[in-house]
């Protein structure tokens, strides 16, 4: 088992080093193959671990090395392979392998392809560390590492300044969340004297920490999750992150990294169970994010931006489930979402590839006949994300909504509206992209083609998973709930009664309504979204993303600039003058002072004796009084 774990951990790291240092010499195809193989090895190792754990073997804690200890706190490089982490690794490395495979073809034109693969491998390595770490600090290393890789890959086409800005924005937004995460770690470490998940779980019942401080710690962890998983108010970086190559959007900004926040909260579920008020905050933030992002997604015209807002919205739904304490439901949605969203992103990449970089849906259309595989795989995923029976999204989204219905009706309403919006904008995307006539240039039309096999194979596999992925957790007889049961506090499963069927029916009708509106608008009336300058009213508010970026600009960025400018103009001048003045004064004094040392022994003696007398007078006469 230890060899498997070592291989699982270090195959991507080895892949990273090889492609980084020798990638140029090895050539594009070979470095791509090495990168893919590295992740595939990890996937196979995970499969073997998964089969062992699923068969009921004990959970493995694997200690790689000591790291450091402060006082009583010992921190080791150790990894925890339990039901949750192995499940997570399974789809991280699985989807990771598929996306690596896809990238071999997708990035083939790029001169820095070997660098792309080394970054992707590094990302997978850090993601494994994040998921498998057995204490908060190892998780934090992975957390920061995936943030770094996200930064590197968003700005992969570094010659475009906008892309660099998007990368920096993602990094800075994440840092804000990371600060919260760190404070949470410090609070827990200080009070529990350990950062191991299992030990914290065991110590939580022992009253080592006041409930209010525990709430603050939970809130801090949630802020960290907000940054990484793009929840309001830290959500604005994810849509901009679409500047990166499409496989990156699929792997990092849809399927894996952005779910790290959900993973962390699921991992710390025992903590959040004790802080119901923070759970409420999580549920409300999730619901608001879901509906806000979905409403922005309604009017986006960039195919990847639609998917990005859809991702934010779906993440919001997952947080809603987390906030309601239904961790296994959130995990279920993470998994199905990873399948269909990765497929959608890769499909959009396939479209963009065929159109030579065109991302605006107003210039697409009619691609159904030219790209049948891309169309059908995306269609399946779209049906899945819209929540149409029997595709995977139906089951997971339905469970979230059902949980919300039992806990809090307003949240259920918000979630349902967000789902209807999802169905609408996804079918809007499909109709604009694949139906009616092609609206691009003649030259583009001439070059239209279905993508090569390396691109379509991952699409087909992901679409298949998106279609049947729901099978892992069917209501009434859920393998997933049973598998994850040891991790969570026991709570009653919802019975599959009339009410449940009614909710399913409502959700399906809602999705169909969304699809119907999109059908009427974009397929029947053949409407094309107007140019950006002509949008008005509510539509404009939505397409300007509720002016969130502008609000941040005015309330945070501008004041910081003003403070910096003030500091630059006045404070810095004052400080530099003070420092230079101090030096000048010392110099002037020393010029005068060096005249005292003139070599005249008489003067020295005089000073010596009078100094001594003065000292004695002070000690024995003045001070004694």
């Amino acid at each position, binding site marked *: 088992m230890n060899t498997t774990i070592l291989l699982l951990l270090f195959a991507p790291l080895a892949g990273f080093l090889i492609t980084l240092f020798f990638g140029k010499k090895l050539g594009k195809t070979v470095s791509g193959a090495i990168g893919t193989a590295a992740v595939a090895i990890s996937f196979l190792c995970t499969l073997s671990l998964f089969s062992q754990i699923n068969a009921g073997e004990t959970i493995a804690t694997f200690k790689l090395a000591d790291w450091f200890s402060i006082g009583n706190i010992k921190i080791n490089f150790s990894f925890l392979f339990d039901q949750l982490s192995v499940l997570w690794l399974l789809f991280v490395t699985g989807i990771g392998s598929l996306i690596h495979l896809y990238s071999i073809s997708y990035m083939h034109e790029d001169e820095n392809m070997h660098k792309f693969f080394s970054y992707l491998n590094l990302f997978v390595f850090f993601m494994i560390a994040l998921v498998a770490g057995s204490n908060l600090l190892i998780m934090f290393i992975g957390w920061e590492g995936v943030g770094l890789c996200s930064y590197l890959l968003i700005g992969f086409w570094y010659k475009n300044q906008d892309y660099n800005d998007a990368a920096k924005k993602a990094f800075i937004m994440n840092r804000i969340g990371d600060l919260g995460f760190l404070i949470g770690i410090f609070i827990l470490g200080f009070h529990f004297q350990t950062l191991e998940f299992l030990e914290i779980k065991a110590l939580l019942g022992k009253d080592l920490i006041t409930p209010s401080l525990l709430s603050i710690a939970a809130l801090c962890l949630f802020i960290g999750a907000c940054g990484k998983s793009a929840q309001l108010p830290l959500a604005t970086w994810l849509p901009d992150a679409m500047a990166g190559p499409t496989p990156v959007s699929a792997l990092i900004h849809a399927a894996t990294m952005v779910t790290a926040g959900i993973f962390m909260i699921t991992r710390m579920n025992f903590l959040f169970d004790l802080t119901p008020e923070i759970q409420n905050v999580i549920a409300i933030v999730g619901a608001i994010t879901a509906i806000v992002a979905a409403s922005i997604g309604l009017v986006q015209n960039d195919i990847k931006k639609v998917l990005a807002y859809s991702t934010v919205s779906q993440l919001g739904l997952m947080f809603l489930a987390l906030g309601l304490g239904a961790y296994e439901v959130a995990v279920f949605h993470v998994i199905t979402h990873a399948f269909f969203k990765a497929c959608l992103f890769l499909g959009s990449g396939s479209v963009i590839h065929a159109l030579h970089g065109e991302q605006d849906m107003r210039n697409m259309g009619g691609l159904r006949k030219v790209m049948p595989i891309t169309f059908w795989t995306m269609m399946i995923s779209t049906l899945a994300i819209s929540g149409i029976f029997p595709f995977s999204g139906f089951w997971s989204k339905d469970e979230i909504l059902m949980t919300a219905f039992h806990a809090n009706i307003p949240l259920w309403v918000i979630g349902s509206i967000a789902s209807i919006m999802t169905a609408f904008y996804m079918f809007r995307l499909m109709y604009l992209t694949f139906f009616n006539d092609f609206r691009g240039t003649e030259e583009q039309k001439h070059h239209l083609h279905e993508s090569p096999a390396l691109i379509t194979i991952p699409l087909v596999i992901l679409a298949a998973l998106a279609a049947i992925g729901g099978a892992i957790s069917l209501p009434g007889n859920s393998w997933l709930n049973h598998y994850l049961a040891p991790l969570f506090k026991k709570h009653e499963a919802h019975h599959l009664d009339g009410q449940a069927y009614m909710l399913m029916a409502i959700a399906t009708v809602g999705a169909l309504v969304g699809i119907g509106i999109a059908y009427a608008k974009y397929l029947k009336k053949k409407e094309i979204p107007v140019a950006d300058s002509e949008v008005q009213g509510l539509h404009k508010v939505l397409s300007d993303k509720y002016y969130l970026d502008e609000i941040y600009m005015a309330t945070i960025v501008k004041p910081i600039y003003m403070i910096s400018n003030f500091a630059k103009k006045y404070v810095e001048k004052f400080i530099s003058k003070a420092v230079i003045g101090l030096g000048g004064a010392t110099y002037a004094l020393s010029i005068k002072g060096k005249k005292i040392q003139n070599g005249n022994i008489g003067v020295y003696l005089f000073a010596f*004796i009078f100094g001594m007398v003065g000292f004695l007078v002070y000690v024995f006469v003045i001070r004694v009084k």
Partner: protein
Amino acid sequence: MNILEHVGIENYLTLSALLFCIGAFGLLYRRNAIIMFMSIEIMLNAVNLLLVAFSSYHEDPSGQVFVFFTMAVAAAEVAVGLAILVSVFRNIGNIDIDNLKNLKG
């Protein structure tokens, strides 16, 4: 019989202080190195006198032991000092300390 009983410790202290001041002023006023040396010796002996006086007053012989040490060290110091002065005299022809300014680094 104790000599202190006839003279009194205050007188020893006064004498010692006087001697010390004479030495100090000699050191400050004179420029001749030999005289300055003598002044230093006077100061040293003022202290010795004080030590002996207190030693006798407290009936504790360790003060007198110190005096022997001081004398021995002073003798050694004079030997070195005088040797330096001889060397100075041979080089510049007098022993006025104002002429030693050039030794300044």
